[in-house]
């Protein structure tokens, strides 16, 4: 029974990692760059929804505040691309990596200025009550996280596979110049995907803040989400979710069965092992081009 309880709580945590990893993968799929500030996006999304909902700030009803926060973050992502990242269009991935790390620092600083450094919780209707399944106890917030994450992965996957815009995004990442020749407005498509990833980050933030307290350093969770994205293969949406679940499930088991000190190493050791033995992840997207 204990194993089942660990598994279930691991799944809920894993879904948060998976949601952040989805943000990485979205941007990677469409722009071939990695947003190292995705964890901080989540943190900002959480704080925006907290600022709209909580009694000491705006005191809006949750079901109005949540969509509002998601749209604010979508606009934020789009504007960030418009004013900052577009300057780096066509530059190497490393430049974007360094830029987004710097953005993460700035976002953390700004969030600290606005909302303070004390941990706060979102007054969310999701946080109420537990669900008892036999002897397994599961918070309602955990259930919500699991359902929302699976739904989002499904819809985003369909979006990339089926819609014209999703295909345009994939084309834009594979070869920017060829995409231009095909009449794809590459820069606008990239802006849209940044907006989409901002919205995803807001969803992750709302769910994360319903489950526990957040502070400006919550974005450092993003490092674990890296592990999730890498394990799943950067560029595969279901892979990101699977990777997140693997990391999430490994953590409580390592904490329970490994000696203290070794348990927090587990996700990173797994990350390094995957990078060494399967550098392109379990759901590899790398194909050798035939000439």
């Amino acid at each position, binding site marked *: 029974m204990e194993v089942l309880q660990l598994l279930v709580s691991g799944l809920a945590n894993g879904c948060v990692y998976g949601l952040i990893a989805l943000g990485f993968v979205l941007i990677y799929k469409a722009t071939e760059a990695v947003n190292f500030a995705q964890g901080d996006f989540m943190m900002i999304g959480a704080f925006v929804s907290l600022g709209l909902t909580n009694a000491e700030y705006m005191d809006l009803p949750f079901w109005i505040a949540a969509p509002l926060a998601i749209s604010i973050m979508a606009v934020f992502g789009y504007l960030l691309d418009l004013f900052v990242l577009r300057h780096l269009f066509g530059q*190497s991935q490393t430049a974007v990596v360094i*830029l987004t790390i710097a953005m993460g620092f700035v976002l953390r600083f700004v969030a600290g200025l606005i909302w303070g450094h004390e941990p706060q919780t979102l007054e969310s209707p999701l946080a109420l009550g537990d669900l008892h399944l036999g002897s397994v106890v599961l918070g309602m917030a955990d259930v919500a996280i699991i359902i929302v994450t699976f739904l989002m992965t499904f819809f985003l996957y369909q979006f990339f596979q089926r819609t014209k815009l999703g295909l345009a995004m994939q084309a834009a*990442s594979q070869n920017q110049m060829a995409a231009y020749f095909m009449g794809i407005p590459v820069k606008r498509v990239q802006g849209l995907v940044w907006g989409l990833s901002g919205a995803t980050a807001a969803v992750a933030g709302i769910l994360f803040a319903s489950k526990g307290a957040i502070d400006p350093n919550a974005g450092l969770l993003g490092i674990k989400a890296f592990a999730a994205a890498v394990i799943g293969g950067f560029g595969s949406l279901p892979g990101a979710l699977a990777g997140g679940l693997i990391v999430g499930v490994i953590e409580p088991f390592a904490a329970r069965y490994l000696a203290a*000190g070794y348990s927090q190493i587990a996700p990173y050791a797994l990350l390094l092992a995957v990078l060494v033995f399967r550098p392109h992840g379990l759901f590899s997207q790398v194909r050798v081009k035939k000439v």
Partner: protein
Amino acid sequence: MRIHFKTSYAHDIRLFPDRWTLSIYGTLLLLAFALPYLLDEFFLGEVTNVLIWAIAGLGLMLLTGQTGQASLGHAAFLAIGCYANTILIEQGVPFIIAFPLAGVLTGVIGVIIAIPVLRLHGIYLAIATIALSVLADDIIVLTEPWSGGVSGKFPEMITIFGFEIERWSMPSRFYYLVLVVTIICTLFYRNLLRSPLGRAFAAVRDSEVSATAMGVHIARTKGKAFGLSCMITGWAGALMGYYAGTFNNETFSLVISITLLMMIVIGGLGSIHGAFFGAVVVAFLPQALSILKDNVVGSGVAIPGLETGVFGMILILFILFEPMGIYGRWLKIRTWFELFPFARKDMFRRQKSYLKTERLR
């Protein structure tokens, strides 16, 4: 404008292209040696800090600026150098042997780590090195019998043939030690660039495909770059340990790794000057900010995250508007004066480029 008429290859790879440059750097060196007589102890300590950061910057510059491999894990190698040096000295090895050995040891560990990691490139390498940096903290705690774990270590006084050097009681002696190491590292780096290996590094950075076509073994070259880079970083780490006076598992955190990478970007990737300019920014920014803050909001008010926040903003501005860093801006200004009035605005314009996926190869 000075025109260099080169008549031989030896002429082409000279350390200093002409007497004028030689005299400038000679003056700089004299000034550096006279500095303890010109500055008080506090500022001398700050300059020492700049030099230590510059050595670490040179180490990372060799890997990132010269070979084009971004590493976000160099704090781990600072830690290895620092711990190796302290532990060797505790075992009774004299400083004059322990210090170089600490760097070499760091380099060897760097190569061992590099073998699997360097098959990766771009973002994967960055992520792997982040994991390395996070792991270093936990590993130091786990190896407590040697590393001292959370309670940390205190480096002993440096003794070179009976001559004692200590950071707090004799800052000018420590300054000279750091200065000598800086000069050795800089000369080493400069000479490396003139050697076939240095050319191979640049070739790998600019295009792996064309480097292979020219007969450069990519993996081996990257491994050497990683090893040499870690060696210099290890020396910087050992000096950093002496400078701090005490260190534990949290001293060499991920933030230090990131600061180091940002430092060389702000200074100017791919140049020795860049490492020094970046080090000046990193070392003096906290002082400048605290003076500024005291004047604006009054002293005693703490703003957490201010330093990293401002540092991040400076970096964003540099990447957007001056990707070549401070050294690049200096080059532009110098060229403008040298060519006056013939300098054109688009002389340094970057070529328009388009990205292609790495997933289809």
